[in-house]
């Protein structure tokens, strides 16, 4: 039953694969422009068997998740602080307004200059790209906490400090998680993009190398590998949300 449902849910993907297969096997497209799906699958299998996939995916995940974690650890408290302190808000709000729509990847040369060409510059790049969403969601979440919840806690004897942990943090958690959920794919995208610009190991670097050698199955295998990693990360995040928000109406249809 579960398998059937999975197949049904994945049927658009299967349809796309079918079209891809038919188009390439009828010779409608040159294999150099679009290699056949079975060619890409073989390459994918070879990458897995040789450990290339594990190495590159692991490295990319490490950079993406480190940068993501730093963005969350700094971004959530920063957003809460901006929401609750007028002076901090006055100082930070214009900076965020300018930074939010900025193409963050443009800072990569600067970070390379400051932090070298190895992991550190890529991790900083990821954090920088991801932090704006986290801060904005944390700020909005904190500001959106219903005052009657704060008042209830205070009238039951909670101190101001206790209210922060007991009420604001859990009440704003859905929005914190929403920001974090958007920041996670941004982190992966930024890590891959940085690798593609800088070269070396990692999924992005492997795709850059494949492109340079006109190895189109390699490029397409890289795209599939990157999507698999993204799917895994986003799926894990959804599970985390489900677990943390068991109480939320979102998971309690009445």
């Amino acid at each position: 039953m579960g398998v059937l449902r999975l197949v049904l849910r994945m049927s658009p993907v299967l349809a796309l694969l079918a079209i891809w297969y038919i188009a390439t096997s009828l010779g409608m497209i040159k294999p150099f422009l679009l290699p056949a799906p079975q060619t890409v699958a073989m390459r994918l299998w070879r990458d897995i068997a040789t450990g290339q996939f594990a190495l590159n995916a692991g490295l990319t995940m490490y950079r993406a998740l480190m940068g993501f974690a730093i963005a969350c650890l700094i971004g959530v408290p920063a957003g809460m602080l901006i929401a609750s302190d007028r002076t901090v808000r006055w100082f930070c709000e214009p900076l965020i307004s300018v930074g939010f729509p900025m193409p963050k990847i443009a800072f990569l040369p600067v970070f390379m200059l400051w932090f070298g060409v190895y992991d550190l510059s890529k991790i900083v790049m990821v954090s920088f790209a991801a932090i704006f969403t986290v801060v904005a969601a944390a700020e909005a979440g904190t500001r959106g906490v219903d005052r009657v919840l704060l008042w209830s806690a205070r009238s039951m004897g909670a101190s101001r400090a206790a209210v922060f942990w007991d009420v604001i943090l859990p009440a704003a958690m859905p929005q914190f998680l929403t920001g974090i959920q958007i920041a996670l794919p941004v982190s992966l995208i930024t890590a891959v993009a940085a690798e593609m610009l800088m070269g070396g190991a990692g999924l992005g670097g492997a795709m850059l190398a494949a492109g340079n050698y006109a190895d189109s199955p390699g490029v397409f295998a890289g795209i599939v590998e990157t999507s698999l990693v993204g799917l895994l990360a986003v799926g894990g995040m959804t599970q985390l949300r489900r677990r943390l928000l068991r109480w939320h109406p979102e998971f309690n249809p009445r």
Partner: protein
Amino acid sequence: MNDGVGIEIERVTHGYTPKRGRPMVALDDISLSIPAHEFHALLGPSGCGKSTLLFLIGGFQKIQQGRIHTAHGDVCAPGPDRGIVFQNFALFPWKTVIENVRYGLEKKGIKGSEAEQTAKHFIDLVHLNGFERSYPAQLSGGMQQRAAIARTLAIDPDILLMDEPFGALDAQTRRIMQEELLAIWRATRKTVVFVTHDVAEAVYLADTISVMSARPGRIKRLVHASFNRSEDTAVFKSPEFTDMVEHVWDMVRDEVDEARRQGH
């Protein structure tokens, strides 16, 4: 606590400035003395400042002018001597019913099995037994408000502040909740300040009704319950009850018209 003193409100004036617009006077020189153990209703049209007055007693907003004191002294911050029940329940949605009720107990330093038993007692009192482990999102509005009342009663406040607590409930549930609230009040004899715009509700529940005027909020009249408030629910049909509702409604009507002219 010394008996007799419930809540003393002395010459309280309170204003606010909306985002766009001129400063408004919400409460204009209010003085009111509510004896201990009294069930007191604040009745008036929307925008008359009755909730503001309640929040000032609760200590949630800063008193701009005048003073409010209770048996515990001057009001300057929220405290567990004044419990509050809000219209939209204000339960912590990430806590189950029993965790909500236990929260205030734990803040008082009551922990473990004692907190569990006390919480159970108040959950039984509001007829929510069997729903201890439910999250608020899994309960109906009436049940959520029962949980909120249990949570507030559990910290054993001297004063119970209620801001249109049954306003969000359907008519049948509201009637049952009113009856049960009266029964709880008779058993506990807490001082209750009950904000409502429902004349029949105020007449049914309260010993004394403060009829408030449209903005600026003033206390127009104090009305004492004139009929025999027995535990019999047939009171709704008694001529004394209907007469009093008419009498109070006449006082409120002008204010409602005035409030409507002000655009509420």
